[in-house]
């Protein structure tokens, strides 16, 4: 599934509209602990977190995450959004909790997998 397809299926707000949304992902990792995300996130993942400080960009950039979803409409400051665009990191805002967002993505990916069988 691509980020573009994801945005069409969920009410997510793209905070980095200047970036391409054709990156694809097949897995999701949810954690607010940066070391856990560093260990588990890959370029094939979307990372869901409530952390909205700049250190998340370091983690996402090092692991080349397909996108970061900030749950519960936690809006980061403009500086973070600007730096995310510079570092080519897609940032999405979700109105749902991390649990709900994860559940929705889990079902979407499962459906996609079943559809491809």
């Amino acid at each position, binding site marked *: 599934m691509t980020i573009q397809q994801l945005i069409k299926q969920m009410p997510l707000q793209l905070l980095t509209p200047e970036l391409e949304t054709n990156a694809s992902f097949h897995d999701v990792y949810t954690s607010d602990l*940066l*070391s856990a995300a*560093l*260990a588990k996130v890959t370029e094939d993942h979307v990372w869901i977190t409530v952390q909205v*400080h700049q250190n998340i960009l*370091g983690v996402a*950039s*090092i*692991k080349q995450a397909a996108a970061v979803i900030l749950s519960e409409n936690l809006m980061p400051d403009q500086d973070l959004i600007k730096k995310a665009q510079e570092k080519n990191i897609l940032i999405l805002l979700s109105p749902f909790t991390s649990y709900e967002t994860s559940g929705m993505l889990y079902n979407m990916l499962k459906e996609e997998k079943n559809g491809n069988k």
Partner: protein
Amino acid sequence: MENTITTSTDKKYVYEVIGADFDTIGSKALAVKKMLNNYFPKNDYLRRLGVCVFEAEANLAIHTTQGGTIEVLVFSDRVRITAKDNGPGMKDMKKALTPGFSTAPEIARQLGFGGGVGLNNIKRFADYFYIESSKKGTILTFEVWNDDDPTAH
């Protein structure tokens, strides 16, 4: 002659990390990753190095007030990183290496640090890991090997 591959190098880079500064954690790791991209194009290898340097950088920023240095030595088949500081040292090394144990302050925890898995992440992603600590400071050395090099190790 084979030994010269890993015993001689002039490719040394030193990065300074500011102590008690959480905002910039990750910036040195990204700089190291970008620099190493000139030597090793493989993404997976660079990501492993990036994780390890990020954790080492976070430790210097969180656990020292005066910061420290991250020295990067580039060999053809591996990268050796040494993170040094003159901080208070680790009181109990065994505990420090136990997953989940952390002495990070509350403010760092609120930012998603201090889960007590940083050093274990380095152990997991690195091929060589050595740490020594005293009241005068801590020296952490690790290597990540590039398995693409047939002359490796």
